[in-house]
């Protein structure tokens, strides 16, 4: 027997109460870990310091003329440029089969995103040479059971063909490995030329223009030059580095960081009150026992440590289970998503934040009852006067 044994025994003296407390902390930490990991996943793609993006100044969904790409490609400080269009694609079912399909210019796309496109040369060449070719992130192919060489019909919820059909046939020519953080996570790449020739509207328009600068030190100068070049035109641009672009892309889904802060903040404010009140009540119920321990020779500081330890144990137990629950939930979500969209894995950084918050929660909720136990006089505790 030791102090930790006593803490554990005291904590579980009312199993139902403790279990309910742990469940409430578990839920709060699971929300924290899931939302944090989600936010982390959509904002932490691999980025290159020299990779920038030009897009319409109005917003992300406004297209730009193809001529912008030509001009940007030739500007000083630009090493390579490509262009991308949002296809609005889905496979079979618009809800379950949604996937981020991008119409790209294959050769320039491979120049600008070379580090995340390490695929066999045969597959790369097939993608370059076949107009109906399609490359997909490996998890997407695995989810739908697609094989290289297979013909895959993809629908668009934005575009239609000249005959009114919204479905395009593509041939899967290769898969892209997507380690964590890959910019190609969940991606489906199709030929811009094939897309551009078959759509019924919006021809010769492009979504945005990713490009590499010759050096990160010229980024500001290049972005200023590009935006100045198209200022006062019908299609003004906004040029930003890739990390900023990713964040603004993610912001289309809502202000995730704000949602995380509000949801987690509300959950923890509630937990703080519940756990704090319950801990105070639990120690108050044990006033006599605290007095007995002190009469046996347990010092006030040792009693304080034991009460604090109890609330820390409760906090870390709930937090640990919450983290485990979040890891399991994220795995389930990731599997259900079949690799579409960013891979929402458990963010290791949340462990550190979780531990810090659990420590704070344990200390804050345990401090008042611990101080009360510390100050308690034996004669008052035992009613011996």
């Amino acid at each position, binding site marked *: 027997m030791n102090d930790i044994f006593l803490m554990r025994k005291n904590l579980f003296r009312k199993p139902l109460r403790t279990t309910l407390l742990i469940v409430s902390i578990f839920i709060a930490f699971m929300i924290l870990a899931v939302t944090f990991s989600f936010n982390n996943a959509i904002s932490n793609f691999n980025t290159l310091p020299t990779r920038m993006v030009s897009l319409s100044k109005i917003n992300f969904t406004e297209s730009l003329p193809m001529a912008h790409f030509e001009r940007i490609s030739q500007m000083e400080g630009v090493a390579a440029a490509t262009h991308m269009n949002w296809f609005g694609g889905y496979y079979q079912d618009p809800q379950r089969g949604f996937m981020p399909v991008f119409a790209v210019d294959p050769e320039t796309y491979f120049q600008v995103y070379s580090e995340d496109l390490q695929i066999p040369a045969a597959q790369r060449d097939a993608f370059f040479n076949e107009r109906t070719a399609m490359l997909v992130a490996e998890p997407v192919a695995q989810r739908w059971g697609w094989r290289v060489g297979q013909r895959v019909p993809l629908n668009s919820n934005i575009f239609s063909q000249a005959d009114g059909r919204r479905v395009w046939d593509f041939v899967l020519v290769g898969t892209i490995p997507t380690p964590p953080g890959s910019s190609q996570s969940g991606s489906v790449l199709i030929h811009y030329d094939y897309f551009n020739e078959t759509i019924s509207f919006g021809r010769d328009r492009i979504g945005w223009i990713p490009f590499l600068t010759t050096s990160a030190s010229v980024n500001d100068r290049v972005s200023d030059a590009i935006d100045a070049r198209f200022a006062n035109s019908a299609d003004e641009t906004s040029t930003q580095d890739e990390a900023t672009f990713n964040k603004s892309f993610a912001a289309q889904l809502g202000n995730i960081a704000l949602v995380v802060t509000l949801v987690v903040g509300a959950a923890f404010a509630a937990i703080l009150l519940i756990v704090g009140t319950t801990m105070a009540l639990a120690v108050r119920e044990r006033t006599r026992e605290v007095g007995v321990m002190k009469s046996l020779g347990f010092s006030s500081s040792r009693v304080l440590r034991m009460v604090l330890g109890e609330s820390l144990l409760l906090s870390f137990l709930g937090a640990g289970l919450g983290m485990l629950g979040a890891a399991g939930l994220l795995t389930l979500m990731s599997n259900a998503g079949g690799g579409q969209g960013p891979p929402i894995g458990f963010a290791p950084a949340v462990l550190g934040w979780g531990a810090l918050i659990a420590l704070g929660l344990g200390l804050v909720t345990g401090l008042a009852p611990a101080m009360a136990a510390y100050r308690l006089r034996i004669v008052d505790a035992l009613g011996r*006067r």
Partner: protein
Amino acid sequence: MPDLIRLTDVEKGYTRGKEKIVIFDKLTMHIEAGDFVAIMGPSGSGKTTLLNLLGGTDKADKGAIEFDGKHIEKLNEGQLTAWRAANVGFIFQFYNLMPILTAAQNVELPLLLTRLSPAKRRANVATALKVVGLEDRARHRPREMSGGQQQRVAIARAIVSDPKLLLCDEPTGDLDRATADEILGTLQVLNRDLGKTIIMVTHDAQAARFAKRTLHLDKGRFEAAELAA
């Protein structure tokens, strides 16, 4: 026998609202090592306050309290706590056992304050439980035992760290006569065979007969003739 406890001109009072209640005014007394003293007196006479002062759970306003030649009134809170752990065992009317712990674990509690190894602690617990005749109830929790058995566990807890002084506050107040006599018999054994000095506060004249002598306390004063005896 030499004095184990010596109180000299001890003063103690409480403030209740605006009223100052004097419990002891220059109380002087001594108790020899190995004595078994019963302290009787009406409610409010200061019996429990005296136990609190002797056990270092409360402080005198003035005066000296010596234990084995050491002035405990001069000890700070931490020193007093350590002194109490080493020298005093408490036995309460309502046992005050930890309901979440077994009998053996309850008895082991004071030993957590020592440097004894777990094996030595277990051995001491077994010995203490044997002394009170409860070696077969070691794994039972308080709620699984009778009042008399719980008080025996409390006695085992009080003696396990081998203190010189046992302070008993109405140790049989919650027990029937037969069980009370068994408990008091155990205290007699501890006093006679193990040399423990016992001070027992009681309202029960029959219980007091188990002590070597009885002191009557009234309005904070002992009868002079009894103190002189």
